[in-house]
């Protein structure tokens, strides 16, 4: 995979996550507004809100993992030499890759169970599994991005974006 393709993947995943945070805010705002001023309840706004939240978080974890934006303890790392910094980074990223891969596997199981058990939304009785599936794809993206991060960290550390900076 060449560099610009990777960068485009990362940008797209981040943009999708960002879109969902906006959707959750819009859902909550609309629900409150309609309830307060028109005494109207959007059917399933509660279930939609929480399922959109799930999607946003998993897609966000993808972005955060790639950026190295997780909450970490930097005490040892900060006082390590350049060389050791890299060793620590590679180790931490490999652990991250392992954990998120396991999580993604178990979440697939969860999505499948939601489908098989016919879990429905409260008001409209819509199946919930498609929402869970979209959230799960976010976690798959996380695995992909962490793999890219690990690859770059080991072989092309110069390509890695600094924390918090945009991809380009």
């Amino acid at each position, binding site marked *: 995979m060449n560099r610009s393709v990777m960068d485009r993947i990362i940008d797209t995943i981040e943009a999708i996550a960002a879109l969902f945070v906006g959707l959750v805010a819009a859902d909550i705002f609309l629900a409150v507004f309609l*309830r307060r001023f028109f*005494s*109207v*309840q959007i059917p399933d706004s*509660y*279930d939609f809100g929480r399922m959109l939240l799930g999607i946003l978080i998993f897609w966000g974890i993808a972005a955060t993992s790639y950026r190295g934006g997780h909450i970490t303890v930097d005490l040892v790392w900060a006082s390590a030499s350049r060389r050791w910094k890299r060793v620590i980074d590679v180790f931490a990223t490999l652990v991250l890759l392992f954990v998120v891969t396991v999580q993604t596997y178990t979440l697939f199981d969860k999505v499948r*169970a939601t489908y098989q*058990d*016919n*879990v*429905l*939304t*409260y*008001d409209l*009785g819509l199946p919930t599994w498609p929402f869970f599936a979209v959230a799960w794809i976010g976690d798959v993206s996380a695995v992909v991005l962490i793999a890219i991060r690990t690859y770059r960290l080991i072989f092309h550390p110069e390509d890695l974006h600094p924390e918090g900076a945009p991809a380009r």
Partner: protein
Amino acid sequence: MAQDRPVDLKISIWLPPAHPLVPSTKEWAADIEKQSGGTIKSAIFPSEQLGKAFDHYDMARDGIADITYVNPGYQPGRFPIIAVGQIPFTFADAKKGTAALDAWYRKLAATEMKDTHFCLAFILDPGTYHGRKKVTVPEDIKGMKIRPAQSTLGQMVTMLGGTNVQASAPEARDVLERGVADGIFFPWGSMFLFGLDKVTKYHMDVPLFSAVFTYSMNKAKYDAMSPAQKKVIDDHCTTEWAVKLTSPWHDFEESGLPKMKAAAGHEVYPLTPDQLKQWKASVEPLQKAWAEAVRKTGADPDALYKDFQASVAKYQAGF
């Protein structure tokens, strides 16, 4: 029995430790330990310490806990058969209703809850409408925002032209206080436990609805026990135990009605026979919806319903 392998059971009940079901489950578990000659020991985990209320069926299925307290109605669509107990105006008495539900569902659990070992089923002490506005006939629900206790009541609210407000029991006071909801369906004793008496005024004195629960067990855990140990579990997973185990809770809920009647600033009003007739007529579509959902699973709803009614009649649990 001394040669039986020791077994440790993790019992998960998502209620707080002070809830009447927790101490009575402790007694139940202590009796299991005694009858098994000390080979089946239990630890009880209240307050969602091992997982959220919604996940308790899956927790038993997956072995995260060994016995769990399940509200099948938390996941609409997943357990359509037992949901019959959620149809309003089904049960008038908690103890008799528990016996009727358990005796009937016992043989059906093997299909509907096939990935767990069924222990027992019970119902909620029938609760009713409480709110800031007075509700006497079904039409009164129109335009109201109501927190239902279970999903079938939610369907009823929608059907009658009201809107549902979703909130957990601890959040319920908040949503009533903030005007997010105008009314609530709730059992009597818990009204005081959750401070809901502070935010409601009108209470319809009728056993309007109930809810269903099970104690479900991890299959592998049960299968791995010795025959003697299995028998001890079987002897504690009976209709009699279902009633005995839940009686303290039912008594607690029941005591809320006289308490509310005596409380100042509260109006507890009965329904006239005509009003009751209107209510019963208005919920008939819910029974049809139940039958439809059951039919989709391939079961015969008419036969099941007839059998269920027979059980309710046998235990004199209905109206």
